[in-house]
């Protein structure tokens, strides 16, 4: 009963059903969507480890099966799918075209589940495209501005997908099969030129989805305009499909080739530069969602670095971060969505001081940023630690600096994010803001607990990761439930860390609360030290515009360079060229007749050239 076709069936049937039911009984559409994700969650969770099924479509045998690697991402998709749909129930309640929304939402989830269970390239590509177009539909969901953004997303996705397709076509023409089991491990049977092309094309293709620079330009806008629940899924799970693919390509294809080290080295540096530049761009943003979008690009850069380095510890770090990023970035997008729902904007220069109005969202955002920053004791630290240790110990001395610079600079945007939205002056404009409904709080709270638990017991997540790595033919690495080891005998015991932090924190927290409790009083944020001058009611005390001006000044040349302009220019040039080209069709019958005559003349005159025969 519990098998992969049923999972896909549930997802796609649920999608269609929620669309149909939207027009019949609008009240039922959300329960239907929610029920679908619950079923999916259960089915994916209970899926037997050795499911394998072959389906014949056309000439191809589509193979779907569970692997530890696929299951790792499958669980991620299912969990995040459930959380985001649950979050949508209230977030989207007042929006229109909900049938459309839920249909595409579930299509995306179904497409992703299809990808992770694919055991051949045709199914992979099939579901990849379903995921792409349904996510495009959600990107353009919001508004008129979204059209060109959505188109940009689709064009980049199409370029990526078609690179993958060319890779697939090359593999098929040289190996005659597209089954993973016949390709993985047999890659050396084909010529080097094709091998290189396949690997590069596929990395480009998957790199587009994981927003690898310079293919990232679609991401910030697309993340920013898509509805928040979807942004959480987009950045959390959808981008991980790119990571999933790159993992497959690297360890199942490239690892067996002679040029593996070059691929690794190049990819690692691209990832590192992506991480650094994306972080810098994130610092310069004023829109919270765009900031998080750039942050996602940066985090995906880390993950790619980890995968590319290819030591057991670094791969573990990458996969750990991949899962964790899905969680914490969803937390942040959800918190941002909560702010958006209550204030109608995500512009960080407009909103401020929501902490007392929206405490749950604030705590979610706080835990989110601590996890992103990689500060102990939350889960992010384990990922960062493993990444740095593996980088240093595998001799990537300068890459580690780049990565470290990126993650230090990440503090800047993270602080700005939480400060601008939740801290700072409590403005009168947002006086009546309320916390979001419980359906939105639940996913946020659950994920907050998750990052906390993973911080103390990283082993919980490292167990499935190490079995996934086994599938990827990577050597096992050493870890315990809450102790991480590096290759040089160093270790971090998270339990001791957490216990000491908790002990000191609680002790002093109690101390500072109890001491002078009665005489400690709350004052508003207008009641501050302003050198004796009393600020008037409408005096602006919020520091939000150009928050990091000095820093931006010192990295100005980097910010100015923009690959986006190059793409826009290329696009314009193409459009212009197409525009000229269409005047081939003049609309004049005589011209067309002339074409016919000319073509005849050419065929006759150059028949030797064309057909090899003189007339």
């Amino acid at each position: 009963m519990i098998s992969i076709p049923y999972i896909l069936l549930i997802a796609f049937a649920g999608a269609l059903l929620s669309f149909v039911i939207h027009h019949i009984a609008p009240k039922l559409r959300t329960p239907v969507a929610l029920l679908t994700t619950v079923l999916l969650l259960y089915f994916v969770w209970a899926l037997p480890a050795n499911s394998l099924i072959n389906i014949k479509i056309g000439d191809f045998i589509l193979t779907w099966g569970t692997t530890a690697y696929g299951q790792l991402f499958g669980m991620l998709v299912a969990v995040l799918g459930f959380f985001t749909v649950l979050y949508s129930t209230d977030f989207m309640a007042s929006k229109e075209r909900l049938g459309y929304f839920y249909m595409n939402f579930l299509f995306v989830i179904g497409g992703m589940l299809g990808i992770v269970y694919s055991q051949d390239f045709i199914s992979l590509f099939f579901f990849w495209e379903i995921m792409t177009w349904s996510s495009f539909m959600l990107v353009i969901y919001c508004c008129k501005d979204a059209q060109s953004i959505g188109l940009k997303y689709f064009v980049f996705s199409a370029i990526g997908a078609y690179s993958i397709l060319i890779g697939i076509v090359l593999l098929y023409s040289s190996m005659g099969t597209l089954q993973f089991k016949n390709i993985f491990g047999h890659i050396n049977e084909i010529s080097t030129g094709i091998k290189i092309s396949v690997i590069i094309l596929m990395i480009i293709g998957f790199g587009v989805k994981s927003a690898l620079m310079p293919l990232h330009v679609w991401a910030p806008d697309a993340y920013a305009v898509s509805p928040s629940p979807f942004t959480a899924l987009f950045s959390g799970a959808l981008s991980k499909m790119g990571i999933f693919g790159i993992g497959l390509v690297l360890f199942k294809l490239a690892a067996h080739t002679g040029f593996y080290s070059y691929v690794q080295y190049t990819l690692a540096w691209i990832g590192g530069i992506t991480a650094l530049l994306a972080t810098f761009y994130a610092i310069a943003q004023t829109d919270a969602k765009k900031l998080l979008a750039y942050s996602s690009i940066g985090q995906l850069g880390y993950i790619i670095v980890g995968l590319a380095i290819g030591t057991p510890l670094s791969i573990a770090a990458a996969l750990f971060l991949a899962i964790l990023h899905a969680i914490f970035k969803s937390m942040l997008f959800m918190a941002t969505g909560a702010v958006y729902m209550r204030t109608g904007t995500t512009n960080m220069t407009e909103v401020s001081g929501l902490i007392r109005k929206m405490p749950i969202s604030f705590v979610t955002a706080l835990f989110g940023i601590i996890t992103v920053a990689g500060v102990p004791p939350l889960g992010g630290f384990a990922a960062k630690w493993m990444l740095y240790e593996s980088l240093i110990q595998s001799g990537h001395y300068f890459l580690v600096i780049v990565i470290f610079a990126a993650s230090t600079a990440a503090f800047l945007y993270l602080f700005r994010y939480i400060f601008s939205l939740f801290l700072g002056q409590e403005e009168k404009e947002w006086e009546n803001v309320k916390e979001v409904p419980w359906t939105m709080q639940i996913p946020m709270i659950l994920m907050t607990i998750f990052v906390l638990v993973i911080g103390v017991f990283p082993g919980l997540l490292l167990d499935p990761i190490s079995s996934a790595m086994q599938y990827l033919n990577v050597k096992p690495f050493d870890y315990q439930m809450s102790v991480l080891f590096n290759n040089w005998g160093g270790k971090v015991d998270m339990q001791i860390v957490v216990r000491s932090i908790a002990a000191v924190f609680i002790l002093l927290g109690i101390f500072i609360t109890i001491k002078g409790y009665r005489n400690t009083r709350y004052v508003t944020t207008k009641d501050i030290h302003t050198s004796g001058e009393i600020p008037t009611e409408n005096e602006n005390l919020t520091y939000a515009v150009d928050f990091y001006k000095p820093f931006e000044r010192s990295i100005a040349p980097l910010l100015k360079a923009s690959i986006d302009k190059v793409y826009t220019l290329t696009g314009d040039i193409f459009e212009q060229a197409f525009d000229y080209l269409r005047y081939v069709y003049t609309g004049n019958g005589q011209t067309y007749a002339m074409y016919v005559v000319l073509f005849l003349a050419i065929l006759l005159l150059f028949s030797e050239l064309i057909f090899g025969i003189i007339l």
Partner: protein
Amino acid sequence: MSPVHFIAIPLFAAFLIPLVGKVSKNLVKLIPGIVFLYLSYVAITLFPIGIHKPIVEIIAGFKAPFGISLYYGPLAAFLTTMITLIGFVIWLYSYKFIIREPIEKYYMLFMMLITGSTGIVLTGDVFNLFVFLEITAIAAYSLTAFLRDKDGAEAAFKYLLIGSFSSTFVLLAIVLLYANVHTLNMADIATKISSVPLTTRIFILILFLMGLGIESEMFPLNGWAPDAYSQAPSPVGAVFGGIVVKASIYALMRLIYLMFEFQSVMHFLVIMGVITMLIAEMSAMRQQQIKRMLAFSSIGQMGLVIIAFGVGTEPSVRAALFQMFNHALIKSLLFFAAGYLVFHSGSKKISALDGLGHDKPITSFFFAFGALAIIGLPPFSGFWSKLYVLLSVANSGLFAAVALILFSSVVEAIYYLRVVSRLYFNTEVATDVRRTPVSGLVAMGILTLVILFVGFYPNLVLHWMTPAANELLNKAAYIKAGLFH
């Protein structure tokens, strides 16, 4: 039961319609429907037979190679079935769409066109091929000018101008052929063609390429197409894209595979296909009118089909046929949807479609569906045929062609999705109280279901594609069946 019904019944209906028109207009509207239902019955009966063993039908009692013969093999079975299906939905759609008089003339021409197209597909000798081409062409010219406005007349004139080139070339080629081999039976020609001097053969080939290239929209001979598609009534666009062009490309490929199977011709076809596709897709990108855009897209798709035929291996021919089938269905769906979108917005301009998705959700949905399908996205049928084309092209080592096909797919995606996002996400327009008629919606619904079903179960069509492709490639079997049945 005989395949001759495919030709005779529509022809008979074409004569009957003006007479019935004197009695009742409503009856006129029903006649094509009855014809198509009958043809479907014929198709269903003959299909299982023809797919296994070709039926060769002799008309007027003379045996091949002297008499006139029909050849109903797997390929013809597939194409006639397709024409019947498309014809049926076009009739269904036209039922409420064509409200302008004289409707009996519309249906008469439509029936003529079906006669001609099935004739092209079924005929076994070249002169009849010419005759049916002419019937099709004349019906097509008249249908282009059906609206009797200035633009329609101009488009029809252009079509006529270029079409007369086509007729001349084909006739000239047939005359030359007859002068050399003294037979008109295609199977017979195939056996005797090797005795013809090479230069003459090439000359004949060039004439056929020119003549049939015009009808099958090969660049640069396709100047007539954008105007004809966009000025004719919308169902006629579907007729062109789904029936006329498909029959013409069949004729071209039949002749090339049967008589001129030089390697260099194949290369030429691939190159011409690529050029046709690229220029058409690029031109489509900047079109202001939705039907012109669809016309260019049709040309682009034909380029793809020509590439696949040019590769000339069994998988590629099969892929080409599959692509033809899908394109016929999807482009018809798009023309149908576009027809009502234009009707409701009152303008042919793409910019007039803003926000129509809110006002006319079902029609817009069909358009969006068709757009996704024609770009080649799963799970629609277009995905599989494009994939098959790509794989077969790549298997012959033509990776540059693969890359160019995918490049044009990106372009295609851009201009289709632009329209789709306009439909749904731009500011809403004033609502149009007129409703899309049920018959139109049913026609689109049928196509949608077929596209979706084939998308999930491509074997349904692919299964029959293999014998069809083999028929085209296996010259010896054709000659044997055609001459010594």
